[in-house]
């Protein structure tokens, strides 16, 4: 069941197209990565989902119904540009945003206290925002975003500005929210975190959806028959034996215990035959496919070197 469906959304501004016929389907309870270089149209898409702007063409469905004004209560949005009222006290401000999201005051206070305790920031309640460091203010902002238990969370670069410990804390919280039933749209440039937590992605470039699907699927699909073999034995003999079916590549991950070779298996060759060949020459310690990282896929896809959808 898809929580959010974006169908053929197009948005044009005076002299450029911000989104051209983009469609997404975000499954309930998934973490969906929205990727793309700067200026690709991610923020426009997020604003359309948030009902801040309306698309020129296309529709957005939440829970199977066309998205309506009241639905903004079901969405929690953490914008990339973080901002809080500097002169306002932290607790008061968090309460203000919670009430704007439609929470009754008493419930908001109770929930806020729980979150402040969880994040170890109870003593900040009466501090002014300007007294906090950037990372501290980010924590407050995250709490404000998730406090009203939205069905759909839209997090734009949530980890930027956090130290590794707090980034991890945040990651755990996001995964936990997902486990409790929230669906997360996660917009980022940090591909390592995409591999870690995203189930699906859509890559937008020049206002178009150029690559989408399940993360693991995409990585396998874009594997190029590149393998690494770690072994003991005669390196030269192995080279000679593989000449016919493989191209040897630079850049194997070496370590001092074994010898390593990185190789590209020719498209018409079968991997099991290659393994058999190697097995005759040397003592194999490991043989594995090198799956491209999301980072490589991202760069190649954006540069247009990848066969995309």
């Amino acid at each position, binding site marked *: 069941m898809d929580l959010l469906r974006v169908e053929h959304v197009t948005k044009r501004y*005076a002299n450029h197209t911000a989104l051209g016929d983009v469609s997404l389907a975000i499954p309930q309870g998934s973490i969906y990565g929205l990727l793309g270089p700067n200026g690709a149209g991610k923020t426009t898409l997020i*604003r359309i989902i*948030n009902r*801040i*702007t*309306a698309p020129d063409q296309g529709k957005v469905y939440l829970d199977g119904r066309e998205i309506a*004004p009241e639905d*903004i*209560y079901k*969405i929690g*949005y*953490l*914008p990339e*540009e*973080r*901002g*809080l*009222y*500097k*002169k*306002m006290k932290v607790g008061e401000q968090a309460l*203000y*945003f919670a*009430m*704007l*999201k*439609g929470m009754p005051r008493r419930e908001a206070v109770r929930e806020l206290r729980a979150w402040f305790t969880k994040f170890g920031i109870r003593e900040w309640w009466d501090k002014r925002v300007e007294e906090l460091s950037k990372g501290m203010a980010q924590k407050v*902002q995250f709490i*404000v*975003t998730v406090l009203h238990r939205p069905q759909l969370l839209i997090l734009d670069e949530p980890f930027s500005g956090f130290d590794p410990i707090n980034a991890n804390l945040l990651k755990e919280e996001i995964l936990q929210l997902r486990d409790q039933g929230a669906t997360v749209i996660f917009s980022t440039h940090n591909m390592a975190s995409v591999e870690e937590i995203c189930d699906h992605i859509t890559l937008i470039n020049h206002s178009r959806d150029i690559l989408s699907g399940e993360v693991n699927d995409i990585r396998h699909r874009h594997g190029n028959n590149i393998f690494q073999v770690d072994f003991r034995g005669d390196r030269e003999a192995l080279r000679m034996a593989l000449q016919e079916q493989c191209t040897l590549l630079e850049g194997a991950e070496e370590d001092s215990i074994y010898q390593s070779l990185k190789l590209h298996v020719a498209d018409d060759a079968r991997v099991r035959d290659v393994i058999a060949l190697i097995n005759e020459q040397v003592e194999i310690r490991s043989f594995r496919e090198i799956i491209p990282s999301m980072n490589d896929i991202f760069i190649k896809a954006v540069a247009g070197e990848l066969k995309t959808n």
Partner: protein
Amino acid sequence: MGKIGIIIQREFNERVRKRSFILTTILTPLLFIGIMVAPALLMRLKTSSDKRIEVVDRSGIVASQLKNGDKLIFQPSDRTPEQIKAARSAGEEESLFGILVIGADVMDNPKDVQLYTYESSTLEIETAISKRIAQILENEKLRQYDIDSLPQILEKVKTDVTLQAFRIDESGRDKESSSALSMGAAYLFGILIYLFVFLYGAMVMQGVIEEKSSKVLEIMVSSVKPYQLMMGKILGIATVAIVQFLIWIVVIFVGGSLAAHAFAGDLAAGAQAMQGSMPADMEGITPETLAAIRSATDPAFLAQIFGGFLVYFIGGYLLYAAMFAAIGSAVDNVADSQQLQLPVTIPMILAFLVMINVMKDPHSPLAVWFSMIPFTSPIIMVARIPYGVPVWQLVLSVVLLYGSFVGMVWVAGKIYRVGIFMYGKKPSFRELYKWIRYKY
């Protein structure tokens, strides 16, 4: 509570708790008292010394009759102006203010009078001198007719008229009116509207710019409609303004009655002293002053003025605040807003200029028209109210003002909606117009 309500509450709480709010609330009445008292104090402090003027009288008529006074001392001289100048250059006559030269033929040619001064003279001094010379010459001419007992006749002829003005109101009763008081009230309240609309309007603009540049808006717009955000801010600051006014009115009334109480003793003592030693001629209290006092304490008159002031202040503020909000949303910082503020400041300044004209003739077509145009009516109509305005004009003007506020909010809301997401570029008026026509 609706979202606009939540926003109004925040705007109100944040501003009222600020130290600057408490300070302006206390200091503004003091400032007004200061403005009223300062001229009197300055008059008293004016310590300009006597000005000595040597009079070279070639006619032989004027010099002997010139009376000293008003810090002017006339000293008949038998030297020529050149001799006096030479003496001054030689270091003598340091204290000399100037030389007055009266032509030999001054009776027939009264233009032949010159004043040479070492410091710059003032209009006040020049008028005083020419008035005195004119008086002397007139007396001299009268004397040439050789009329018997001329001084007695002149004394008898002297008359002083004080006009008592009444205004016939719509029910046909005539009411004592004081044009001086009306003018004072018109001027004061016109200026107050001008000041406060700018003051609180600019507050709205700064608030919007602050929210935009600190990126708070990015979170807000995902839970609130831009329109609600804008209205919340405008209305929130309006409540701040109203509360501040109410405090001021209370302070002025309490302060006023305390002052009256404190001076009551003095007044009683003064009255006693007067009965004993002073003649019954109470100088200074003319029918005009009495009329002013009577209307100033007339509750209907006061209610009309204060009521009109509040209605037009709120209407004018709302109209201009909507414009200020739109401007604030379109720029990134206050400096960039200067140019866009022109359409706001020009009508206000125009209204201010027209107001001075209106006070001379509060029922001229100019006055009536400008008290209907919503952009100028808050100032012009408030300046007209003390003189009495027909009810239909008031109603029409208020309807136009509040109606155009609604229209302006619609336009401003459109600009605001686009503006809050535009960073970096200072928009032109053409772009603002395009934003109004964007569809969402």
